């Protein structure tokens, strides 16, 4: 056990990359998909292992692996998870087998490359979540972009080049700002402590005057806001989603966007706390605008996928306001923060499911125009059931995960900024407006289009990757503590001590004597 715990995170980060090479080099698609599936399941089991052995009573960084990487500059290879990243890591490892299952039937010469890219993407995502060194993080952050760029740019729709370029330029613009700010922080740390270090654990100790914090915070916040995407930096998202292949959208919505909100929590808030307090009202404003704006624009879309894409802008707005609910006493609101971290996972599940479902009918009909559908509940009852469950979670009906996240965010923000919470509550109504419109246009009404009459209901393979998501959406709504329980200390720690943030850590080889709880 000690051996596993010592290297489990490196395994999660690099196993998919190794598998990606193996997949790329495998002799046939059949072999490739088995290799891909096998490795992703192995990684998922690894993710569950981390979850099981994670000590939920401690806010510390756990399963830490730390080695010198570029000693001259103080760059380290540090991996670790805490309550902020734990669920996101597990979610990522969970989504990959489902994504691969949805690709199982595709057989063409390029498919090997596609599967390899998906695995490489997984590697980048887990790496970015687990890396605790700024340089190391930055490498993964940029590395994620490359597979995604190809997934959209090569396997995408008609305007794929435009969308892929827009996606990459937007993100890189943000990343460069972040890089410049990180370098500054690095020198500030040197000035303060006399040693060079890029380890985040060291950088947390840097205390900058508010005026300097403002610049650096802005740079970090913009980088992450683009990724989220926060209004008004969101316009790359609908294009990217519409052009991306289904699984690209699933991973984009499921995990990639969360890198933005995760980054805000991991970097922007604890590194520049005073600046964050100053900027919080602006960010909350943008979040609330995003909630309403995203919902309204989603409502008028005629393309089902674009509708779901804009819904992400709205849902992520909730996460943003949940992150910045500064109470009168200067602490962050714990309910809101808990809701925000939970909503990241929920959104991954429900929106992932929605993109899959839109993909299902797109694959059958080669159109996503809402007007081309209607009455599918008649001949696709299982599809209807699952679409309704995903919708309910998306609109935050009690009993689904979406409710837990949204509710905790709203009640928390209400304690800090009642007016903002009241406007944000409109999102609860507007979310139902566009999602029920989507259901009505696709599922209900007369089944009068001859092309729709012949559509077959979900097959076993499709049920295989959709049912787990639907079940999870409900289980997360009824037993949220099974999921948030272990993240609590870390969230409370951040909420209370973000102004003086520091993280304890437990090395991977020390984890084994902790009993799981």
């Amino acid at each position, binding site marked *: 056990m000690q051996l596993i715990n010592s290297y489990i995170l490196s395994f999660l980060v690099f196993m998919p990359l190794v598998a990606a090479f193996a997949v790329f080099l495998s002799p046939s698609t059949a072999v490739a998909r088995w290799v891909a599936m096998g490795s992703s399941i192995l990684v998922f089991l690894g993710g569950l292992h981390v979850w099981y052995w994670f000590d939920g009573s401690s806010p510390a960084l756990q399963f830490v692996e730390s080695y010198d990487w570029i000693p001259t500059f103080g760059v380290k290879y540090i991996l670790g998870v805490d309550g902020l990243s734990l669920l996101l890591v597990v979610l990522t490892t969970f989504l990959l087998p489902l994504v691969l299952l949805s690709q199982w039937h595709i057989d063409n010469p390029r498919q090997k490359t596609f599967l390899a890219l998906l695995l490489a993407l997984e590697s980048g995502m887990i790496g970015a979540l687990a890396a605790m060194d700024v340089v190391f993080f930055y490498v993964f952050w940029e590395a994620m972009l490359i597979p995604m760029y190809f997934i959209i740019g090569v396997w995408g729709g008609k305007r794929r080049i435009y969308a892929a370029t827009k996606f990459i330029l937007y993100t890189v613009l943000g990343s460069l700002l972040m890089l410049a700010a990180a370098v500054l922080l690095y020198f500030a740390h040197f000035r303060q402590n006399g040693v060079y270090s890029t380890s985040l654990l060291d950088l947390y100790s840097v205390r900058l005057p508010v005026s300097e914090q403002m610049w650096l915070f802005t740079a970090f916040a913009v980088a992450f806001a683009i990724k989220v995407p926060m209004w008004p930096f969101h316009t790359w998202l609908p294009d990217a989603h519409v052009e991306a292949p289904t699984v690209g959208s699933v991973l984009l919505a499921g995990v990639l966007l969360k890198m933005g909100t995760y980054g805000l929590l991991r970097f922007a808030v604890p590194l520049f706390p005073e600046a964050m307090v100053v900027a919080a009202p602006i960010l909350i404003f943008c979040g609330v605008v995003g909630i309403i*704006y995203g919902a*309204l624009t989603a409502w008028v879309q005629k393309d089902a996928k674009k509708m779901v894409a804009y819904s992400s802008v709205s849902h992520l707005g909730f996460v943003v306001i949940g992150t910045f609910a500064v109470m009168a006493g200067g602490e962050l609101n714990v309910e809101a923060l808990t809701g925000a971290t939970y909503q990241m996972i929920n959104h991954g599940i429900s929106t992932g499911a929605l993109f899959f479902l839109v993909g299902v009918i797109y694959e059958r009909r080669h159109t996503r125009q809402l007007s081309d559908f*209607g009455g599918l509940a008649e001949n696709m009852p299982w599809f209807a059931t699952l679409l309704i469950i995903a919708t309910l979670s998306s609109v935050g009906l009690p009993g689904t995960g979406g409710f837990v996240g949204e509710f905790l965010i709203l*009640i928390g923000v209400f304690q800090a900024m009642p007016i903002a919470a*009241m406007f944000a*509550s409109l999102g609860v109504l507007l979310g*139902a407006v566009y999602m029920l419109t989507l259901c*009505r246009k696709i599922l209900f009404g007369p089944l009068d289009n001859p092309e729709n009459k012949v559509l077959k209901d979900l097959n076993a393979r499709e049920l295989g990757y959709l049912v787990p998501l639907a079940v999870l959406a409900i289980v997360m709504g009824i*037993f949220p503590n099974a999921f*948030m329980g272990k993240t609590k200390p870390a969230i409370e720690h951040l909420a209370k001590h973000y102004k003086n943030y520091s993280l304890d850590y437990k090395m991977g080889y020390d984890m084994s004597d902790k009993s799981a709880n």
Partner: protein
Amino acid sequence: MLWVMLLAPLVGAILNGLLLRKAPKLVSHLVAIAAMAIAFAAAVSMFLEMMHSGGEAKTFLAFDWLDAGGFHAPFKYVVDRLSGLMMLVVTGVGMLIHIYAGGYMHEEVTTYRFFAYLNLFVFMMLQLVMADNLMVMFVGWEGVGLCSYLLIGYWFHDDKNAAAGMKAFLVNRIGDIGFLIGIFLTYKYFGTVSFTELRQLIGHEPLDAVKIGAIGWITLCMFVGATGKSAQLPLYIWLPDAMAGPTPVSALIHAATMVTAGVFMMTRLNFMYYLSPSTMHVVAIIGGLTAFFAATIAIVQSDIKKVLAYSTVSQLGYMVMACGVGAFDAGVFHLLTHACFKALMFMAAGSVIVAMHHEQDMFKMGGLRKYMPVTHFVFLIGVLAIIGMPPFAGFFSKDEILWKAYIGGGPLLWGIGVVTAGCTSFYMVRLLCLTFYGAHRGAHHDDHAAHGHADHKKQDDHKAHGDAHGHGDSHTPHETGMDMWGPLVVLAALSATVGLLGVPHALGGHNLFAEYLEPIMLIPEAAKEHWEFLEATYSHTLEMGLMASSVVVMLIASFTAIKLYGGGPAPVLTKWRTSCSGVYNTLSNKYFVDEFYVANIVTPVREIAEFLWAFVDVKIIDGAVNSAGEICRFIAGTVSFKMTGSIHRHAMVLVVGLVCALSVLVFN
């Protein structure tokens, strides 16, 4: 027992909805009925147990649910006098409706979906009424909304039904936002959402002015929720459209149970409402106006279900008005009697509709007494109950409300109530006459498809399959089977007698019902003075006088209706219709409220949304992004023209630039 009652309908729903999709109709029906029978049996046993122990409240903890920061909301339930009563209504009336529904849905090809939704609804309704905290209540609150949405749109092939379901869900969600904000405020000022703790904090401990002010807002916000769920002004608009659903649904959800949730919620929180007289004024006024307003619309409707729908809105208005004058017990009493007689009338109307081959226009009915004697008889009892004919159920519950409205709200509120009662008598007797008396005006049923409603076309198609519900052979309406009229007879018996639980003191009774609910009501110390009239000894003569006058109004209105409609619609009606076309059109178009909302809210918001997308998003933001791209490209083009393009030079420039930037940063 509680768990049995709560879980039986859920198990039924899961069995029917997920596992037994291919099972025959009879199986899905039996599963659903079995689930309800088990739940009802459990409810009865729990009720007896509770009464045996003197009506003590008992709480049951299932497991922790929400737990973050200081916020704590477990799945916890309470069995007390209020929830005990409600669980009997929900499972009892629910079971009767489930039995009836089998007959009603006989012509459907598959019914698993229907019974799954219906069972799920009962499960959610039980969450709502058994909840021990606001959060669990909210689970039920939105859960019943979901089931209502699914059931209204049950015949989804017609987009009209799907639209009606969606409208119901969305209008309810507007109210739900009010409910949510009420929860936020409650947590902010009292740090808990548990009813038990709130009751202790608010009912028994001294409060400062800030908290009392907060309670004013909390109760008002929660009332917004109630206007959605209980179909009050200005959010009642979804309920008439909800009649698109199958009739058993209208009976169960849109008459007997779900729509009373608002009244139930206010009664649950009565100690908060007592503390804010200004909210109570709003509640009483909204209730009274809704009662009156809906009753006037019901007078001119020709669709039998629409009449019943507006009648429900109007009766809910009575209940809300009762809450508003502090007579929560009277509100709940009327809830109980209304559940019996309105469920009865809806289902009897359903039988009529089936017999008329899905004709819902009363002007095409008439004379059905001959063909459907049992249905006629039970409907008659329902009508007598709702118009307040002594000693049927509605007489006691309605007069209790009117009496309390008089002493708590004054003569004006009472007057509105009495006029409404007159309207009620008029439209109900009108409905009875048009449907059951006079000559049969139905066309001969020689062409089914022509007069089947579009939304029921599917069923009509299936008649060709020789579905033996008596359609194929006879063209005349006929009595339904016992599976359908059986439950009606039970409800009729209840409608006739249940009022006797609340015989007022003025008539020599003891008002057992008010006595039963007494421990639920809690007037906090700070509000005692304001509500002391509730405790005062009543003037029996006044009460008798009011009672007599409302009976007189009822009789006059009923006889007028009999005169006008007893032998079919009187010819004079057509003349009136043309001479007062303004009034008639306003009423028959429901005061154009829907049109007003569409024109002033829905359309403008939609236009804003279009503008945001087509202009702000595409033109402004994306325009800026794209032109930034163009500018970069332009600059890059110019610069690269000047540079040699050698990698060395690029690298040099990059390094120099970085060094400059960094030195500025480090040395400033």
